[in-house]
């Protein structure tokens, strides 16, 4: 990325400005390569992925980084909702709400699923809570790995793909199919879903219960069980006053980094039993962040059941009130930030998610209104490669989002109006002028 020709940058920016398909930008090579080399080290295969050959990596699927010719690592094999671990701490290892079968309408009895990590009301400090969260995360990661083993062992026994296996280095040499872990490089991936909602929930618990003492953990759990209904003031504090990930706020991002480390460390502890494939971490939520929002109970960040969860490595919807650069800086920080090296290459970067992390930012189309602004946008991409993640999708603000912001201003606090020397958020300018701004954007006039 550092040596991408200007012409290619220009082409990308033109493509984005025409909005014919939102291109996924994947060429943040340095951060990606740092992740791949780290994966080689952690997976004990530095002979296969190292600084002499890592430039040969390529994305498969959507954005999942992989070596070429000898790599049959799985991606999106497992999709784990990290938020469950927060819930299990509050409930001592049980579902907060009983599971209701959507076909029969019958509700299941609540069981002791996870470990009992103690009565949360006896936690004196937030560190106690975080320790319990770590234990519950270890449990859900282990459970997810065990569940995956069922399908992995079936494929291992009954699902040989000889043609594919002929094309992937390692299978012939070992006499094992790709489905038997025959490829030279053969990881399987645990994708974390709902990262930001998990982090924001922990931040809210820290803020409301331990810092501000606005409520006890029991009261908070009650509010979540009630889906926040009847707890409007507490919910408003959770949504508005508690810190959030995605604002380049160092204390908040530092907790986010701890959550990242806990998830990654637990993931690296597992291998498939039947095929001995090492688990590696990634963050690619597909559409689970939308669907799971109906399954997961209300969360401590102020989200009600049924509302969307956060997507992949993105901040929670509307939480990035400090704009795209702050949002990107937070993403880069939680991936590990940078090293002290000044080699000018990937050694300056840390990336704990070798499989990649999906990141989407929505821009106001005025950012591309003329050549000067296109240049500024291009510079943003160049800054992103230094401070951001591995994969960036640019969305252009749809006027319908602004219409929704008129109705639900609390969910869209981040929308900024950009005019010379002027300073205001969209939700604060009044209905009449909001209508005017919507009209302008709808007609491509900014």
């Amino acid at each position: 990325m550092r040596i991408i020709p200007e012409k290619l940058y220009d082409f990308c920016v033109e493509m984005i400005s025409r909005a014919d398909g939102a291109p996924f930008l994947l060429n943040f090579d340095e951060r990606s390569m740092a992740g791949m080399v780290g994966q080689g080290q952690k997976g004990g295969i530095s002979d296969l992925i190292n600084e002499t050959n890592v430039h040969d990596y390529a994305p498969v699927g959507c954005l999942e980084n992989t070596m070429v010719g000898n790599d049959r690592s799985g991606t999106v094999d497992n999709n784990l909702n990290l938020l469950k671990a927060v819930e299990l701490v509050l409930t001592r290892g049980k579902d907060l709400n009983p599971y209701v079968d959507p076909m029969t309408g019958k509700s299941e009895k609540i069981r002791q699923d996870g470990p009992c990590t103690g009565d949360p009301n006896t936690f004196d400090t937030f560190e106690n809570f975080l320790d319990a969260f770590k234990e519950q995360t270890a449990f859900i990661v282990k459970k997810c790995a065990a569940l995956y083993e069922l399908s992995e062992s079936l494929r291992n026994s009954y699902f040989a793909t000889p043609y594919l296996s002929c094309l992937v280095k390692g299978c012939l040499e070992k006499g094992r199919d790709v489905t038997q872990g025959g490829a030279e490089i053969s990881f399987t991936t645990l994708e974390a879903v709902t990262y930001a909602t998990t982090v924001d929930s922990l931040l809210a618990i820290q803020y409301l219960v331990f810092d501000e003492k606005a409520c006890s953990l029991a009261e908070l759990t009650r509010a979540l069980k009630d889906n926040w209904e009847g707890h409007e003031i507490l919910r408003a504090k959770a949504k508005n006053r508690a810190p959030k990930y995605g604002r380049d706020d160092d204390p908040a991002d530092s907790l986010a980094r701890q959550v990242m480390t806990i998830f990654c460390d637990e993931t690296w502890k597992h291998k498939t039993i039947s095929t001995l494939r090492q688990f590696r971490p990634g963050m690619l939520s597909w559409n689970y962040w939308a669907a799971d929002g109906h399954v997961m109970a209300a969360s401590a960040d102020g989200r009600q059941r049924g509302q969307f969860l956060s997507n992949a490595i993105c901040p929670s919807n509307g939480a990035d009130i400090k704009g795209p650069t702050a949002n990107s800086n937070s993403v880069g920080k939680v991936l590990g930030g940078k090293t002290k090296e000044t080699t000018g290459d990937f050694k300056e970067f840390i990336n704990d998610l070798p499989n990649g992390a999906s990141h989407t930012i929505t821009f106001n189309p005025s950012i591309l209104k003329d050549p000067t602004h296109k240049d500024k946008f291009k510079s943003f991409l160049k800054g992103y490669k230094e401070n951001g993640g591995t994969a960036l999708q640019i969305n252009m603000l749809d006027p319908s989002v602004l219409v929704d912001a008129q109705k639900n201003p609390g969910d869209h606090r981040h929308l900024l109006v950009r005019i010379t020397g002027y300073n205001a958020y969209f939700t604060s300018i009044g209905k009449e002028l909001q209508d005017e701004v919507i009209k302008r954007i709808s007609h491509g006039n900014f």
Partner: protein
Amino acid sequence: MMTPGTDRPGTDPKGTDRPGTDRRGIILEIQRMSTEDGPGLRTTVFLKGCPLNCRWCHNPESISPKPQLVWNGVGCIGCGICVDTCSQGALTATPEGIVIDRGRCKGCGECARECPTLSIVLLGEKWRASDLVNELAKDQAYFLQSKGGVTLSGGEATLQPRFTHGVLTGLKARGIHTALDTCGMCSFDCLETLLPVTDLLLFDIKEIDARRHEKFTGVSNERILDNLKQLPGLLGAFKTDLWIRTPIIPGATDREETIRAIGEFIVNNLEGRVSRWELCAFNNLGKEKYTRLGEQWAYGATLLVERKKMEALYLEAVKTGVGEGIVFWSGSVRPDQGTL
């Protein structure tokens, strides 16, 4: 992190008035990834307090140097905590929302610290210059890639000269490009102090006629124009770039003779020094801000400028001899006419 609420005003430890100390200043907002306040990608800091009182000001909350309480009803859940919190009895819950008795409000911000929805906000937050520099440096990677940097805007930064000097000096020490957006209503000494640490001066010329200037802004422009006349020497010495900005306000500055007079002033006094002269179209989005401050805006019902008017004034500006590549116009025009 910019936490909601604010420090109490007037709690500056003694001695911070001395130059060279880490002075505190009052700011309204830090806006990151600004694309309209100078070259490249910038972080714009809006300082609070302005010596002018322009009738058309779109940031009225930036005029008073004191913290000001506002209630923004869109997120309010009517919990009444603010009313109960206020020790001065300055807040009343009415069917139309929270009403602030500005005679009673002491600006302590206690209600803002308690409001669960951030609907009550005390505008104006005290920052130490060194803390602000650390916060602003967070986007250095984007500044470097875009040849951008930091713009101090307002309000009026020269009204807090030592704080401003501290921030600009701190930024320069880190190699960050600095821009100072000023109305020019300050002593020449102040400019002499700030220019060595300013890479770009964004200087407003709103009107040449002194009486009209006073009518529109509350002050005569004598000192502003004097400062401008003395500028060329300083600009050369410190290699500071100069941009002139002129707001195009319906019924006030949107006249060809105004633009002609400003153009002639530039040609006669700042020949070769101005690298950009920007005509900024009137922005009508300040209306709610006035309502929240309990004020009426003279321009509340004023329509945006027409596109053909902006184009005509642009041509007039070019004709004065300032130069085609130097004059630009920006901002929103009437909805069906788009912008440049």
